[in-house]
Protein backbone atom coordinates (compact mmCIF):
# COMPACT_ATOMS: atom_id res chain seq x y z
CA UNK A 1 0.00 0.00 0.00
CA UNK A 2 2.80 2.39 0.92
CA UNK A 3 4.60 1.55 -2.30
CA UNK A 4 1.43 2.33 -4.26
CA UNK A 5 1.04 5.69 -2.48
CA UNK A 6 4.70 6.53 -3.04
CA UNK A 7 4.55 5.84 -6.79
CA UNK A 8 1.22 7.66 -7.08
CA UNK A 9 2.50 10.84 -5.40
CA UNK A 10 5.70 10.79 -7.44
CA UNK A 11 3.91 10.35 -10.78
CA UNK A 12 1.26 12.95 -9.89
CA UNK A 13 3.83 15.58 -8.91
CA UNK A 14 5.75 14.94 -12.14
CA UNK A 15 2.49 15.28 -14.09
CA UNK A 16 1.71 18.62 -12.42
CA UNK A 17 5.22 19.86 -13.13
CA UNK A 18 4.83 19.02 -16.82
CA UNK A 19 1.39 20.63 -17.03
CA UNK A 20 2.64 23.83 -15.35
CA UNK A 21 2.31 26.75 -17.77
CA UNK A 22 1.05 24.82 -20.80
CA UNK A 23 -1.67 26.05 -23.11
CA UNK A 24 -3.24 29.50 -22.94
CA UNK A 25 -4.44 29.34 -19.34
CA UNK A 26 -2.39 32.27 -18.04
CA UNK A 27 0.66 32.15 -15.76
CA UNK A 28 0.06 28.68 -14.37
CA UNK A 29 -1.41 27.26 -17.57
CA UNK A 30 -3.88 24.47 -17.05
CA UNK A 31 -2.47 23.56 -13.64
CA UNK A 32 -5.50 24.71 -11.64
CA UNK A 33 -8.18 23.60 -14.09
CA UNK A 34 -10.21 20.77 -12.60
CA UNK A 35 -10.32 18.80 -15.87
CA UNK A 36 -6.54 18.66 -15.91
CA UNK A 37 -6.37 17.59 -12.25
CA UNK A 38 -8.90 14.79 -12.82
CA UNK A 39 -7.03 13.58 -15.91
CA UNK A 40 -3.78 13.68 -13.92
CA UNK A 41 -5.32 11.74 -11.04
CA UNK A 42 -6.61 8.99 -13.36
CA UNK A 43 -3.31 8.69 -15.24
CA UNK A 44 -1.32 8.64 -11.99
CA UNK A 45 -3.56 5.98 -10.47
CA UNK A 46 -3.19 3.75 -13.54
CA UNK A 47 0.58 4.34 -13.68
CA UNK A 48 0.94 3.64 -9.96
CA UNK A 49 -1.10 0.43 -10.24
CA UNK A 50 1.13 -0.83 -13.06
CA UNK A 51 4.52 0.41 -11.87
CA UNK A 52 4.35 0.10 -8.11
CA UNK A 53 6.33 -3.13 -7.98
CA UNK A 54 9.01 -1.62 -10.24
CA UNK A 55 9.46 1.87 -8.79
CA UNK A 56 8.33 1.31 -5.23
CA UNK A 57 10.20 -1.66 -3.80
CA UNK A 58 9.33 -2.25 -0.16
CA UNK A 59 12.82 -1.22 1.01
CA UNK A 60 12.58 2.11 -0.82
CA UNK A 61 9.63 3.27 1.27
CA UNK A 62 12.08 4.25 4.01
CA UNK A 63 13.30 7.14 1.89
CA UNK A 64 9.66 8.18 1.35
CA UNK A 65 8.94 8.17 5.07
CA UNK A 66 12.18 10.02 5.84
CA UNK A 67 11.60 12.70 3.23
CA UNK A 68 12.32 15.65 5.62
CA UNK A 69 15.75 14.20 6.31
CA UNK A 70 16.37 14.06 2.56
CA UNK A 71 15.69 17.79 2.35
CA UNK A 72 18.36 18.36 5.02
CA UNK A 73 20.71 16.12 3.05
CA UNK A 74 20.48 18.21 -0.16
CA UNK A 75 22.46 21.28 1.13
CA UNK A 76 25.07 18.99 2.73
CA UNK A 77 25.46 17.20 -0.59
CA UNK A 78 25.61 20.47 -2.55
CA UNK A 79 28.36 21.84 -0.29
CA UNK A 80 30.38 18.67 -0.91
CA UNK A 81 29.78 18.98 -4.66
CA UNK A 82 31.07 22.56 -4.63
CA UNK A 83 34.17 21.46 -2.70
CA UNK A 84 34.73 18.59 -5.14
CA UNK A 85 34.63 20.96 -8.08
CA UNK A 86 37.15 23.35 -6.55
CA UNK A 87 39.39 20.36 -5.84
CA UNK A 88 39.14 19.11 -9.44
CA UNK A 89 39.81 22.67 -10.61
CA UNK A 90 43.04 22.76 -8.58
CA UNK A 91 44.06 19.33 -9.90
CA UNK A 92 43.39 20.30 -13.51
CA UNK A 93 45.56 23.39 -13.12
CA UNK A 94 48.43 21.89 -11.08
CA UNK A 95 48.25 18.33 -12.48
CA UNK A 96 49.08 16.80 -9.08
CA UNK A 97 47.24 13.49 -8.78
CA UNK A 98 47.84 10.22 -6.94
CA UNK A 99 45.14 7.84 -8.24
CA UNK A 100 44.25 4.32 -7.17
CA UNK A 101 41.35 1.94 -6.74
CA UNK A 102 40.53 1.13 -3.10
CA UNK A 103 38.12 -1.29 -1.50
CA UNK A 104 35.79 -0.08 1.24
CA UNK A 105 33.19 -1.85 3.34
CA UNK A 106 30.74 0.82 4.46
CA UNK A 107 28.44 -1.74 6.09
CA UNK A 108 25.34 -0.84 4.08
CA UNK A 109 22.95 -3.72 3.49
CA UNK A 110 20.10 -2.36 1.36
CA UNK A 111 20.37 -1.62 -2.34
CA UNK A 112 18.91 1.83 -1.79
CA UNK A 113 21.62 2.72 0.73
CA UNK A 114 24.33 1.51 -1.63
CA UNK A 115 22.82 3.47 -4.50
CA UNK A 116 22.66 6.68 -2.47
CA UNK A 117 26.24 6.28 -1.26
CA UNK A 118 27.60 5.30 -4.69
CA UNK A 119 25.94 8.21 -6.49
CA UNK A 120 26.79 10.69 -3.74
CA UNK A 121 30.48 9.88 -3.61
CA UNK A 122 30.74 9.93 -7.40
CA UNK A 123 29.83 13.61 -7.23
CA UNK A 124 31.87 14.47 -4.13
CA UNK A 125 35.59 15.12 -3.52
CA UNK A 126 38.03 12.93 -5.39
CA UNK A 127 36.08 9.67 -5.55
CA UNK A 128 34.34 7.67 -8.28
CA UNK A 129 32.51 4.39 -7.73
CA UNK A 130 33.92 1.66 -9.97
CA UNK A 131 31.96 -1.34 -8.74
CA UNK A 132 29.30 -2.24 -6.21
CA UNK A 133 27.47 -5.52 -5.69
CA UNK A 134 23.96 -6.68 -4.87
CA UNK A 135 25.00 -9.41 -2.49
CA UNK A 136 28.23 -8.07 -1.01
CA UNK A 137 28.82 -5.08 1.23
CA UNK A 138 32.11 -4.02 -0.33
CA UNK A 139 32.49 -1.29 -2.92
CA UNK A 140 35.41 -0.39 -5.18
CA UNK A 141 36.20 3.30 -5.40
CA UNK A 142 38.60 5.09 -7.73
CA UNK A 143 40.27 7.68 -5.54
CA UNK A 144 42.13 10.48 -7.31
CA UNK A 145 44.26 11.49 -4.32
CA UNK A 146 44.95 8.38 -2.25
CA UNK A 147 45.82 9.00 1.40
CA UNK A 148 47.69 6.30 3.27
CA UNK A 149 45.34 4.68 5.74
CA UNK A 150 45.84 1.77 8.11
CA UNK A 151 42.38 0.72 9.27
CA UNK A 152 39.16 0.28 7.30
CA UNK A 153 37.42 2.95 9.41
CA UNK A 154 40.06 5.54 8.50
CA UNK A 155 39.72 4.61 4.86
CA UNK A 156 35.91 4.89 4.90
CA UNK A 157 36.27 8.25 6.60
CA UNK A 158 38.73 9.40 3.95
CA UNK A 159 36.66 8.20 1.00
CA UNK A 160 33.09 8.94 2.07
CA UNK A 161 33.44 11.64 4.70
CA UNK A 162 30.06 11.96 6.34
CA UNK A 163 28.20 10.28 3.49
CA UNK A 164 28.34 6.73 4.83
CA UNK A 165 26.48 7.96 7.90
CA UNK A 166 24.01 9.88 5.75
CA UNK A 167 23.25 6.88 3.53
CA UNK A 168 22.66 4.78 6.64
CA UNK A 169 20.32 7.35 8.14
CA UNK A 170 18.40 7.78 4.89
CA UNK A 171 18.00 4.19 3.82
CA UNK A 172 18.51 1.70 6.65
Amino acid at each position, binding site marked *: MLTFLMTFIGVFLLYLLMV*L*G*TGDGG*TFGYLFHWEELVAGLIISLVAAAIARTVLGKAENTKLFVRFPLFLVYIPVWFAALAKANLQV*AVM*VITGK*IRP*GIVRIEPGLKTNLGKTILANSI*TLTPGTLTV*DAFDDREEMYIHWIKVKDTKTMDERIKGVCGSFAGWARRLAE
Partner: protein
Amino acid sequence: MDGWTIAMIVLLAISIFFILLGTIGLHRFPDVYTRLHAATKTTTFGSIFLIAAVIVYGAFRLTEVSGDNAGSFMHLIGMSIIALLALLFTNPTGAHAIARAARRTGVEPEQAVIDDYREVK
Protein backbone atom coordinates in the same frame (compact mmCIF):
# COMPACT_ATOMS: atom_id res chain seq x y z
CA MET B 1 21.92 46.46 -16.44
CA ASP B 2 19.44 45.46 -13.80
CA GLY B 3 19.70 42.84 -11.06
CA TRP B 4 18.19 40.09 -13.20
CA THR B 5 20.78 40.47 -15.95
CA ILE B 6 23.67 40.55 -13.48
CA ALA B 7 22.35 37.43 -11.73
CA MET B 8 22.12 35.62 -15.08
CA ILE B 9 25.62 36.68 -16.13
CA VAL B 10 27.11 35.55 -12.80
CA LEU B 11 25.37 32.15 -13.00
CA LEU B 12 26.42 31.63 -16.62
CA ALA B 13 30.02 32.67 -15.83
CA ILE B 14 30.27 30.14 -12.98
CA SER B 15 28.80 27.43 -15.18
CA ILE B 16 31.08 28.14 -18.13
CA PHE B 17 34.16 28.32 -15.87
CA PHE B 18 33.57 24.84 -14.45
CA ILE B 19 32.58 23.24 -17.76
CA LEU B 20 35.72 24.72 -19.35
CA LEU B 21 37.86 23.29 -16.53
CA GLY B 22 36.18 19.92 -17.04
CA THR B 23 37.04 20.02 -20.72
CA ILE B 24 40.68 20.89 -20.00
CA GLY B 25 40.82 18.13 -17.39
CA LEU B 26 39.47 15.66 -19.92
CA HIS B 27 42.53 16.30 -22.08
CA ARG B 28 45.06 16.68 -19.28
CA PHE B 29 44.42 13.66 -17.07
CA PRO B 30 46.21 10.40 -17.92
CA ASP B 31 43.56 7.65 -18.08
CA VAL B 32 39.84 6.92 -18.33
CA TYR B 33 39.15 6.98 -14.57
CA THR B 34 40.76 10.32 -13.80
CA ARG B 35 39.15 11.75 -16.92
CA LEU B 36 35.77 10.61 -15.66
CA HIS B 37 36.43 12.57 -12.45
CA ALA B 38 36.87 15.72 -14.51
CA ALA B 39 33.96 14.96 -16.82
CA THR B 40 31.25 14.07 -14.28
CA LYS B 41 31.79 16.44 -11.38
CA THR B 42 32.39 19.61 -13.31
CA THR B 43 29.65 19.08 -15.89
CA THR B 44 27.09 18.31 -13.17
CA PHE B 45 28.06 21.39 -11.18
CA GLY B 46 28.21 23.56 -14.31
CA SER B 47 24.84 22.32 -15.53
CA ILE B 48 23.21 23.12 -12.17
CA PHE B 49 24.26 26.75 -12.60
CA LEU B 50 23.34 26.75 -16.30
CA ILE B 51 19.82 25.56 -15.45
CA ALA B 52 19.66 28.06 -12.56
CA ALA B 53 20.38 30.79 -15.13
CA VAL B 54 17.51 29.52 -17.30
CA ILE B 55 15.19 29.55 -14.27
CA VAL B 56 16.23 33.11 -13.41
CA TYR B 57 15.57 34.10 -17.03
CA GLY B 58 12.10 32.52 -16.87
CA ALA B 59 11.30 34.31 -13.62
CA PHE B 60 12.57 37.58 -15.11
CA ARG B 61 10.32 37.27 -18.14
CA LEU B 62 7.41 36.31 -15.90
CA THR B 63 7.66 39.70 -14.20
CA GLU B 64 7.54 41.43 -17.63
CA VAL B 65 4.81 39.64 -19.53
CA SER B 66 1.29 38.99 -18.38
CA GLY B 67 -1.82 37.33 -19.76
CA ASP B 68 -1.83 34.22 -21.93
CA ASN B 69 1.85 34.34 -22.90
CA ALA B 70 3.12 34.16 -19.32
CA GLY B 71 2.42 30.43 -19.22
CA SER B 72 5.21 29.60 -21.64
CA PHE B 73 7.87 30.96 -19.25
CA MET B 74 6.34 29.05 -16.35
CA HIS B 75 6.54 25.97 -18.58
CA LEU B 76 10.20 26.75 -19.27
CA ILE B 77 10.91 26.77 -15.52
CA GLY B 78 9.04 23.48 -14.97
CA MET B 79 10.86 21.73 -17.80
CA SER B 80 14.24 23.04 -16.59
CA ILE B 81 13.61 21.50 -13.16
CA ILE B 82 12.77 18.14 -14.77
CA ALA B 83 15.94 18.35 -16.88
CA LEU B 84 17.99 19.09 -13.74
CA LEU B 85 16.53 16.11 -11.86
CA ALA B 86 17.19 13.78 -14.81
CA LEU B 87 20.77 15.06 -15.05
CA LEU B 88 21.46 14.61 -11.34
CA PHE B 89 20.42 10.96 -11.48
CA THR B 90 21.92 9.94 -14.83
CA ASN B 91 25.31 11.68 -14.60
CA PRO B 92 26.85 9.72 -11.68
CA THR B 93 25.15 6.51 -12.85
CA GLY B 94 26.61 6.91 -16.32
CA ALA B 95 30.08 7.59 -14.95
CA HIS B 96 29.82 4.52 -12.74
CA ALA B 97 28.76 2.37 -15.73
CA ILE B 98 31.70 3.58 -17.84
CA ALA B 99 34.21 3.04 -15.01
CA ARG B 100 32.88 -0.45 -14.30
CA ALA B 101 32.89 -1.43 -17.99
CA ALA B 102 36.45 -0.13 -18.36
CA ARG B 103 37.68 -2.08 -15.32
CA ARG B 104 35.89 -5.28 -16.37
CA THR B 105 37.47 -5.16 -19.81
CA GLY B 106 40.88 -4.86 -18.16
CA VAL B 107 41.81 -1.20 -18.46
CA GLU B 108 44.46 -0.61 -15.80
CA PRO B 109 44.42 2.68 -13.88
CA GLU B 110 47.54 4.61 -14.85
CA GLN B 111 49.95 5.99 -12.22
CA ALA B 112 48.01 3.98 -9.64
CA VAL B 113 49.56 3.65 -6.20
CA ILE B 114 47.04 1.01 -5.14
CA ASP B 115 44.65 -1.28 -7.03
CA ASP B 116 42.43 -3.43 -4.83
CA TYR B 117 40.26 -4.42 -7.77
CA ARG B 118 42.95 -6.79 -9.06
CA GLU B 119 41.82 -9.52 -6.66
CA VAL B 120 38.17 -9.51 -7.81
CA LYS B 121 37.03 -12.20 -10.16
